[in-house]
């Protein structure tokens, strides 16, 4: 079996694994040499000559941060540098591309922000390091949605790849999940949310309360679903179940027959002209909605914000069947060690220490550690975003754009109402290969 590691796979191909081990040794020896030279240089440099080595030795800590654009912004970058002196370089990719990069180029980043549903793919490959929870200051304050699958003491839906199923590893370098809590986590949770359908209330002009409306012929040619198979299939399953066509034992892990059934219903709808388009890029969903090409579609929370900030009404509609949730967290590549790993842990601790949590909450996401985020938000903001209360004054985004006027209530209400109504999580199915093929067939039909 060959792991898709770009730099080493040719060696593994022809010479077996030994060769690549030798390679690693060589590199280590060389880097040892380098650092010794650097030290010597620094010793010299402290005298008369101020050359490169000195700068290297006391260089600004920099981390290369691979992820989707969710947590990447110039504000956090600035704040991070002020607080800790760490510089961050963003490498922004789509959800699927992040997974691909972890597997094929594990040396191209220092820290990765990945989703829990990718874990069944990534953990067996051994490309990520088990995260030591003892080094995370706020670990005991991580919300129970991650650790126990509960919100406000109530157990929430766990169909699909719920974080609690893939949170713990058996050891620091383990490639197996642990059902019991251990010291080592797959990902240190950062951000999560509950997704649903977005609608244009001004064009629909009536209440919407079920996922089944996505295939309602009333919206023929004006509906849309996302063209990312692993997420689209979950939305499709929510619709099929809401229509009363079928009740899945586990939407997040369908059998071949269940995939066939789901795709058949959507293929028929597509042939009948139900969909205006499919989107695969966040911005496409914004444009489709803002231009009125589409009035109901699967959508992500920041896309709703983007439509609204253009002054166009758009609702993130709570539906009676519940939400499809997702969650992301930090991991280090299995090659991480030493100072660079320390810097990454410091960064994660900063991330969970409150400022960033408030930044995420103000965009409509949720922070994994709410207690520290609360301290960094104004009481009226906390009431609007977390408690489902009417805004006591205008609600602004982190960049200062107005998101809601005084008196408005957040779509879906409070944290407990929204996260408490989660029905399923983004998932990697056992039959993933088959599902992707069937999805391609639907697009071709």
């Amino acid at each position, binding site marked *: 079996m060959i792991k898709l590691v770009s730099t080493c796979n040719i060696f593994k191909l022809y010479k077996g694994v030994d060769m690549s081990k030798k390679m690693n040794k060589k590199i280590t020896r060389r880097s040892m040499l380098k650092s010794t030279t650097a030290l010597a240089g620094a010793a010299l440099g402290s005298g008369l000559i101020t050359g490169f080595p000195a700068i290297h030795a006391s260089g600004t800590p920099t981390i290369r941060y691979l992820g989707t654009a969710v947590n990447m912004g110039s504000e956090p970058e600035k704040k991070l540098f002020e607080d800790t002196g760490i510089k961050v370089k963003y490498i922004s990719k789509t959800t699927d591309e992040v997974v691909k990069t972890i597997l094929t180029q594990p040396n191209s980043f220092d820290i990765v922000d990945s989703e829990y549903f990718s874990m069944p793919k990534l953990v067996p490959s051994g490309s990520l390091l088990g995260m030591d929870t003892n080094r995370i200051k706020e670990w005991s304050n991580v919300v129970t949605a991650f650790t126990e699958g509960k919100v406000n003491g109530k157990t929430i839906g766990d169909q699909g790849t719920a974080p609690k199923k893939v949170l713990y590893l058996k050891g620091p370098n383990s490639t197996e999940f642990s059902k019991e809590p251990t010291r080592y986590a797959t990902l240190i949770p950062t951000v999560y949310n509950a997704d649903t359908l977005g609608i244009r209330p001004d064009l629909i002009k009536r209440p919407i309360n079920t996922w089944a409306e996505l295939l309602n012929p009333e919206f023929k040619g004006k509906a849309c679903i996302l063209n990312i198979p692993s997420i689209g299939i979950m939305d499709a399953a929510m619709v099929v179940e809401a229509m009363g066509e079928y009740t899945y034992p586990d939407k997040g892990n369908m059998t071949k027959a269940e995939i066939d059934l789901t795709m058949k219903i959507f293929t028929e709808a597509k042939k009948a002209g139900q969909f205006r388009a499919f989107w695969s890029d966040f911005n496409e969903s914004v444009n489709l909605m803002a231009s009125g090409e589409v009035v109901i579609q699967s959508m992500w929370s920041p896309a709703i914000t983007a439509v609204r900030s253009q002054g166009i009404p758009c609702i993130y509609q709570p539906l009676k069947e519940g939400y499809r949730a997702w969650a992301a967290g930090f991991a280090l590549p299995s090659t991480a060690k030493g100072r660079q790993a320390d810097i990454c842990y410091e960064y994660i601790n900063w991330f969970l220490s409150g400022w960033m949590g408030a930044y995420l909450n103000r965009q409509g996401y949720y922070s994994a550690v709410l207690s520290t985020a609360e301290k960094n938000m104004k009481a009226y903001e906390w009431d609007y975003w977390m408690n489902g209360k009417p805004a006591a004054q205008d609600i602004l985004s982190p960049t200062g754009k107005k998101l809601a006027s005084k008196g408005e209530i957040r779509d879906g209400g409070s944290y407990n109402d929204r996260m408490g109504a989660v029905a399923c999580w983004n998932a990697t199915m056992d039959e993933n290969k088959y599902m992707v093929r069937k999805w391609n067939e639907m697009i071709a*039909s």
Partner: protein
Amino acid sequence: MKINKHFLLALPFYLIFIFFFIIPLILTIIVSFWDYTEYSIIPDFIFDNYKYIFNKCFKFSTDLCVTFKTYLSTFYFCFMAWFFTLIIGFTVAYFLVFHVRSVGMQIVLFLICTIPFWTSNVIRMISWIPLLGRNGLFNSFLISTGVIDEPQEWFLYSHFSVILAFVHLYTLFMIVPIFNSLIRIDKSLIEAAYDSGANGFQILTNIIIPLCKPGIIIGSIFVITVVMGDFLTIGIMGGQQIASIGKIIQVEMSYLQLPSAAANAVILLIITLLLIWTMTKFIDIRKEL
């Protein structure tokens, strides 16, 4: 001795082709016979990837299989894009060569043709969307002038919009080689034909078109190969509802199903080569160049 010298001169070219074309191609073919899991590819010699591509394709009782359907739709786009780029490209090149008298003016106009290429492909495509959309400029204009009562849905995210974008994007690929062929036609041939009493249409069909065949074929090869492998234009302008082989390969690659993607790529390559081979039957490009 002489042969050796020529060989040395051609060596850099050989090397570039071997490293950047032959070796990757061979690797692609090898990988297309491998097995794979979610996160790894496994050396093997299996035909599963190919079998899947032609799954149910030869049972003619049922509907066409996905692969055949996708290729049919790709052929359709190829033909339409080729047809319109050829008509427009030939007309523009003809105008530049035979109706613009001064060389300076020819160069200026030729450069103007290339201006759209200063912006990216994607931007040129996306800029059609506000024009063609349900509430776009064309629909608003047609409604306000009373030509239509309701917004036309087929302007955007349809076969029409895909072909429009292809023609917009690739007409220059036709103009350049045809222009190049036309400008090398000896003007005295045309004068001779005119003096012998041929009319404009006869000159066009008997002299100009036969002499610019190489340009037409080269332009056609450009357009057809680009459209065969396209997934971006079909994706954006077709609202991702129209399948293309390129899109299938892209989805498979993003899910790390590399062997399957490689098999699709090999089939696509074979079909594209067959198309080009057929075209070169009409003309010996080497001889004409």
